[in-house]
């Protein structure tokens, strides 16, 4: 096993490296989020058909993209913890689940609000929104399964299996929902189609997508640090860390 992969397995090293990454990544992410939002909200032209309500795209699409990517991160971390029995991969999976669920909730909430001015109803069974709803249930399933086990070691193994099963099913779910949508609705416009917006609107969107990916990484690392502290609470390096916990 090459050294970097092996090092990833040792908690104190991972705790420290996560801390140093966060020190510079978190400020950059928050800065990118603010500039992207202000740019998208206040400086770009409104869209021809939808007017200003399209500005929600700058948080809906990035959240949806990262929510889906988050599930794959969780499932792959689960696979690594199952196959190579790495405790830190368990920690990554456990940390990724709630963060992914939160991003899926953002995508669902903003998608629903966006439906009101565009379609006149609070909830629209658009293919993308429906798949996002199912993804949200998959996330909740993993979180609920983890809480249902008393023995946390078995809990993370069971969640790894469930997230792998989920990962295999996501493409099937997305394709079958698209098929279902086309089957029943016919070719009504898909209001979340990216192709139609022109370049001046594309740049803030790309910035926001990057910012959301960075935000996911930050939240993942933040949660992992807490999880490592809890799991390694009886080791020496955590006790030493706790006693000189004067600093932030």
């Amino acid at each position, binding site marked *: 096993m090459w050294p970097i992969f092996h090092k990833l397995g040792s908690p104190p090293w991972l705790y420290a490296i996560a801390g140093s990454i966060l020190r510079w990544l978190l400020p950059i992410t928050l800065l990118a989020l603010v500039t992207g939002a202000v740019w998208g909200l206040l400086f770009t032209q409104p869209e021809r058909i939808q007017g200003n309500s399209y500005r929600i795209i700058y948080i809906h699409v990035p959240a949806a993209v990262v929510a889906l990517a988050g599930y794959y991160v969780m499932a792959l971390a689960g696979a690594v913890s199952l196959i190579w*029995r790495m405790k830190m991969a368990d920690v990554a999976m456990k940390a990724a689940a709630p963060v992914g669920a939160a991003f899926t909730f953002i995508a669902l909430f903003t998608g629903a609000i966006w439906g009101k001015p565009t379609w006149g109803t609070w909830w629209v069974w658009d293919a993308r929104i429906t798949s996002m709803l199912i993804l949200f249930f998959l996330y909740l399933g993993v979180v609920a399964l983890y809480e249902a086990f008393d*023995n946390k*070691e*078995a809990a993370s*193994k069971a969640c790894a299996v469930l997230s792998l099963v989920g990962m295999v099913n996501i493409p099937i779910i997305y394709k079958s929902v698209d098929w279902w949508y086309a089957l029943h609705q016919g070719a009504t416009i898909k209001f979340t189609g990216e192709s139609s917006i022109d370049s001046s609107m594309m740049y803030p969107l790309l910035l926001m997508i990057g910012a959301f990916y960075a935000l996911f990484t930050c939240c993942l690392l933040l949660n992992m640090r807490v999880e490592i502290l809890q799991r390694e609470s*009886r080791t020496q390096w955590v006790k030493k860390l706790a006693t000189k916990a004067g600093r932030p």
Partner: protein
Amino acid sequence: MPSSPTGAPLLAARSLCLERGGRQLFRNLSFDILAGQLWQIEGSNGAGKTSLMRILCGLSRYGYEGSVERHVPFLYLGHQSAVKALLTPRENLAFHVSGEGQYGNEQIESALAEVGLYGYEDVASHTLSAGQHRRVNLARLLLSDTSLWLLDEPFTAIDTAGVDALQALLASHVAAGGAVVMTSHQALEVACDVHVLNLGAGATV
């Protein structure tokens, strides 16, 4: 006393450590189970006897350090009697899920007779007592020809006559070159010598 049996160990345990709820149950426990040996694992309640048995037989695969190699097929009798209440003792043994072998009717009947269940072969198991359920489970010892037996508290709910018969069976199995690892609170009166592994002190033999 047969000469100390040499040859490959039936089961090799290497530096087993188990920690549960903050307490170190045992630490780098290593031993080999050789043919012709009878091992008894002793320890107070909660000393980790059952956990060790489940590690040895491979039921628990995570949560402990160290390794266990089993070189022969083995037979594990756990706390529960693994007897389906809806099936008769004959059906329980004929359709047993442990996948050891396909037993004919006469074998099953003679095994059931030997564990004192003569006449109960075709009675629905839910009418039998817990002790009788365990005897159906013990009948598997007579049926199977695996050499390594891992028994978790085999004497519970068995009357004194049954215990004596079981001890005799263990002795004859060990004498015939098999090996037995069992946990029990009772002292064993068995014809062969007993290797005792005490978990209380966490000592290695």
